[in-house]
């Protein structure tokens, strides 16, 4: 009994093997030697191909009636492509390529079938992975605060968390509130678990947002992923901050002169610092502009600017400077140059409080001397 059961099991195994991967009579042997899936990992909705390679390792030709791919988890797009196949000669290899469209994420095993003209068939399960993880976009660097019309740098990193390589990777910025130096950056192929850095120069115009879109291909299928950065204009916390103090306004033969100090109270260098005056003031020689040059943080420098201002009581003092990238900045300080439209008296020396004692004494002394002299002249006369 035990011997009979062993024989039956062995017989079943032989039959099963013959029906699964080979078909042969005496002198013929057909088998699947390899298969290739493109893309390596599908994304939901992707269209791809499975190429199955079959060889006849026997000594006689084998007639194939039909080849097909049977699956209910993926959608075959060319299941009638191999409705008639013909024979495969001895030591001949033949490729069968099927086009499939992925439906949902998962690991699937569609079966490859060969029907032989002589009866019987062969099937072979093919593994296909469908996984929809997109590329990842991350911001590596961006300013603490964007400044209007000041070029800033935004550094992004594009990562591929997928199991397969993606191709044709392009990152492009989109915004109605900013201009960009680059319209797009091409990365190309991005292998599994690899990443690539991209740099964009952004010149904001107003509050808004910037959308960075990474476009790529998985096989023949185009996909994209995006990241949005809010664009809020403000002051850069590390920027240079020229502060003016010790202001002194004096009159000159040609008009006015403002003297003072400029101190960089910021955390970055202020380059090409220039001090001048704006309208209604008209800069005059010898110091139309006063060039200070570079001011390091906590450094200061004195300045003198000359100008005329026909009727203004207050004029704008302009401090112009650049940052490391050459962006222009300007700071305006209103300076009062007159107490009244045209004239003033020095407060410290104002004599309006009353007749100075020295003047009274002088008048009395002169009057006394003159009176005495007149009296004396008539007495002697």
């Amino acid at each position: 009994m035990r011997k009979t059961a062993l024989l039956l099991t062995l017989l079943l195994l032989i039959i099963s093997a013959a029906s699964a991967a080979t078909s042969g009579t005496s002198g013929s042997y057909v088998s699947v030697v390899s298969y290739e899936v493109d893309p390596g990992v599908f994304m939901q909705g992707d269209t791809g191909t499975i190429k199955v390679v079959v060889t006849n390792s026997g000594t006689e030709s084998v007639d194939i009636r039909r080849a097909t791919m049977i699956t209910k988890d993926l959608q075959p797009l060319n299941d009638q492509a191999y409705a008639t196949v013909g024979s495969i000669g001895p030591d001949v290899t033949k490729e069968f390529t099927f086009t499939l469209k992925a439906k949902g994420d998962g690991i699937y095993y569609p079966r490859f079938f060969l029907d032989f003209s002589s009866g019987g068939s062969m099937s072979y399960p093919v593994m296909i992975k469908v996984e929809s993880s997109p590329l990842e976009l991350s911001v590596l660097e961006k300013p603490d605060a964007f400044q209007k019309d000041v070029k800033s740098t935004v550094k992004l990193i594009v990562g591929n968390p997928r199991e397969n390589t993606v191709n044709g990777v392009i990152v492009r910025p989109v915004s109605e509130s900013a201009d960009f130096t680059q319209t797009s950056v091409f990365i190309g192929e991005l292998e599994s678990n690899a990443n690539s850095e991209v740099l964009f120069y952004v010149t904001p115009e107003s509050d808004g947002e910037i959308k960075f879109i990474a476009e790529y291909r998985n096989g023949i299928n185009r996909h994209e992923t995006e990241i949005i950065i809010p664009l809020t204009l403000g002051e850069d916390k590390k920027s240079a901050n020229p502060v003016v103090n010790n202001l002194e306004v004096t009159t000159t033969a040609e008009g006015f002169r403002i003297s003072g100090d400029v101190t960089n109270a910021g955390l970055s260098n202020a380059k090409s610092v220039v001090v001048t005056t704006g309208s209604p003031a008209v800069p005059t020689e010898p110091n139309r502009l006063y060039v200070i040059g570079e001011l390091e943080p906590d450094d200061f420098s004195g300045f003198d600017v000359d100008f005329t201002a026909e009727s203004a009581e207050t004029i704008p003092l302009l401090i112009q400077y650049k940052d490391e990238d050459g962006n222009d900045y300007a700071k305006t300080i209103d300076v009062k140059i007159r107490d009244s439209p045209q004239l003033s008296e020095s407060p410290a020396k104002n004599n309006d409080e009353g007749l100075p004692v020295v003047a009274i004494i002088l008048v009395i002394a002169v009057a006394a001397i003159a009176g005495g002299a007149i009296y004396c002249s008539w007495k002697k006369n």
Partner: protein
Amino acid sequence: MIPVKEILLSPGDFFDELIKKPESLKIPAVIILIYGILAGVAAAIASSASVALLPREAAFMSGILPVIGFVAAVIGTFIFILIWAGILHIISSLLKGEGGFSRTLELTAYGTIPQIFGSIITAVLMYMHFSSLSLSPVTSQADIVAVTEMMASGPLMTASAVIGIIVFLWSANIWLIGMMKCRKMQMKQAAISVGIPVAVYLIISLMALI
């Protein structure tokens, strides 16, 4: 040597001696020159302060304006004394004063010595006054009027004007005695001769002061 003390304290004795000597305008010319220089200094101080009022187009005047003020004051002093002596001479002649114009010019010049001291004090007061002002360039007529009023007003300028009037009266006293001695006039006629122009001058000065 100018006998300053004698002229100021006993002009009668001085003119009694002067009438005995021939007419000479050398010392009077020196007196007028000193008076003119002091007046020129005061004018230069005022001109220097006015430089700040010049508009940009007239900035080239800033260096020469004080010089012009000084020269004009020196020359103006000579002209003023000449005219003043002429007025005194004409009026005194109408009131039967004797002697020529040179003698009148001589006594007029000696009579200005008190004003020399007055000019020194006035120059100091003007300097103090203008130093206290912070002036800006002016362009409109209204600004010019406002600045001029400000420059001419103030306690120090008032004191300067009052001192000017006092020393002018002192000079008038010397001219009065000089007229009596040199032009051989009665006190009443001499007082009229000197009093009329002095009164006119004082009225004008006081009007300006007020």
